[in-house]
């Protein structure tokens, strides 16, 4: 190989190795609070409220849960006072979870409910009963972030969909969840709906493309 080619390829490879070590590895190994599923995201432009009065119950149907879920989070407002206690149930065929949230949580906070892992992904119904003496509001979306989740308060349908997400118990890295992430990307991908295809494309983009570019550079008569 001639000297200019060696220089070009050497500089190219060295830059990419430095990039991989300085940027790529930290990116993949950084611990993150990766959601297990976000069935109902927070609002985009305007916050709506689903108010649960004392003794009332709000239920959400068609909420999808994944096998990585170990926590459920809800955004709540308590009107400047300590939040009332809540009774939470999550039900689906073959899966039931019950939990109590002690009163006294802060206004504008996120309430976290521990859950047992479901064995597989499924649609669940989440119900939140206000067992205290003061009202509580679930922050919800009625704008473009309005989700497909069906919401009822005491059996009556309401429009705003509460901000609700499922999470793992501890932060994890993308490297830890590489296989799970490939499976997630494959969902709603039509004829490419397989995680091996995602892996193949990742390999082609991250390894194949840089190698081809180096090969083209080497053969471009420097």
């Amino acid at each position, binding site marked *: 190989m001639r000297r*200019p*080619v060696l*220089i*070009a*390829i*050497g*500089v*190219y*490879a*060295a*830059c*990419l190795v430095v*990039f991989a070590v300085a*940027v*790529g590895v930290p*990116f993949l190994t950084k611990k993150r609070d*990766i*959601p297990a*599923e*976000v069935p*109902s*995201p927070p609002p*985009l432009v305007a916050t709506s409220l689903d108010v649960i009065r004392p003794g009332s119950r709000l239920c959400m149907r*068609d909420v*999808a*849960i*994944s096998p990585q879920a170990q926590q459920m989070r809800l955004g709540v407002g308590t009107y400047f006072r300590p939040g009332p206690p809540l009774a939470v149930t999550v039900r689906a065929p073959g899966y039931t979870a019950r939990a109590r949230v002690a009163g006294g949580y802060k206004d504008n906070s996120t309430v976290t409910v521990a859950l047992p892992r479901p064995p597989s*992904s499924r*649609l669940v119904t989440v119900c939140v009963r206000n067992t205290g003496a003061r009202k509580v509001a679930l922050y919800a*979306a009625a704008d*473009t*972030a*309005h989700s*497909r989740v069906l919401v009822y308060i005491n059996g009556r349908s309401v429009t705003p969909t509460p901000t609700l997400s499922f999470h793992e118990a501890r932060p994890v890295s*993308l490297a830890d969840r590489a296989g799970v992430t490939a*499976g*997630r*990307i494959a*969902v*709603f*991908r*039509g*004829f*490419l*709906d397989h995680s091996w295809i*995602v892996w193949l*494309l*990742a390999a*082609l*983009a991250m390894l*194949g*493309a840089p190698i*081809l*570019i180096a090969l*083209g*550079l080497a*053969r*471009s*008569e*420097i």
Partner: protein
Amino acid sequence: MLHRLRQVPLPLACLLGAATFLACAWIVLMPPLQGPDEVSHFAYVQRIAERHVIPWTPSGNGGGQPYSTEVGTALVQGGVGPLSRNIAARPLWTRADERLWSRTAAGADRGDGGYTSAMRNPPLYYLYELVPYGISSGGKFWDQALLMRFANVPLFLIALAFIWLLAGELLGRGPLQYIAAATAALIPQLTNIVATVNPDIALVAEWSAALYLMTLVMRRGPRRGLIVALALLLVAGGFTQPRSLPLVVPAAMAALLGLARERGWRRVNPLTLGLGALLIGVPLVVALAARGLGSVRQFGSYIWQFYLPKLGSMAPTIGPVHYDVRLGFVDRIFGTLAQLEVGLPPTIEDVAWWVVRLGLVALLAALVIKRDAVRRNAGLAVVFLTAIWTLLASLHLVAYRAMLSSPGDPIITGRYLLPLIGLLGLAVAIVGSVLPRMARAAYAGVVLAAGVAIQVVSLGLLLERFYA
């Protein structure tokens, strides 16, 4: 066919292969309908396919939804709508979500729905997208959405092939040609557009081809075949997106200069034509800007403040105050992916801004060093400069007119400059051309590594936005 494929130079084949791999990764990683205005463009194709009518004069929504029931179901039951621009949202990613969507989407109407903003566009790109739409019409909605994105890959490769040819014609075969084409291929906003059902990628292909043909017309004379092909490209561009109309000016200029050289018309030279275009074009743009509510002073102030710091005597610009050349062009060519919500980290944006400014200085220095070559190619230089200023002037004119009634939306954005991406590639290669051989080799290594790195960063940002 195989014989012809074997004639493709290996570096170009490698580049096209790498570009295909990257484009496919973008297409699959970015969730369906999450590209810029993608749902609107998809709806346009669906309208033509299902109703067999081109919406030449779109108006009203008939009191109903702008999209078909099928698209509406994908937006709601498929979780595409809540995901749009909402960085706290994630795609619905379990099989349970998919099963629920399947149940609700069964038999959903594809032919209903009203009008979307994209339907004001001319139909050529949407007619092209009918092919993948039709091929996958027996499948699921997601098959169609994905296959229509894949139909952009040939347009991407055509654009790169013409940039390769353009660079080869001007800089000769070798590493500079490779640097020019690879630089274009690795710009993140271009791959973002390839991964989106959106006519912008067709414009990039048409303009790249047109710039090459203009070069041939100038260098080899206005042969009938070249002129016809150039004219067809102008028509195709006009039927793809009105933003392509300014291309008529440099194309006409190239044809006239080619003809003048062949026939010895001394008065028709690069200087007279370039000045003529400016003397006619600038007053025309200013007059159009000043119509009705517009004013020359305000338009001038807007243009000044887009590129340069505000002077003390100036009133604040008409649009968003901080929306300038950096935010509107540089940040949006290297970042602001998906539906603008995925930006580069501030440090990389700063680096990109410095690189662009230093690159401009380096380009000017390179052109001074290569002044003899520039003089020999003065006609082409004037044609390319005219392509740049006419596109910019038309974009600013349209943006200004729109901001007169809606000043909150700056309209103009980096991806509108992508049709000129071949010239960006050329500029990067020209800077390399003045370096000594060994330094040029190192420069090639750095440029290509930076391109690959920014592609990887962009894919990582998309992964983080949607799946982390």
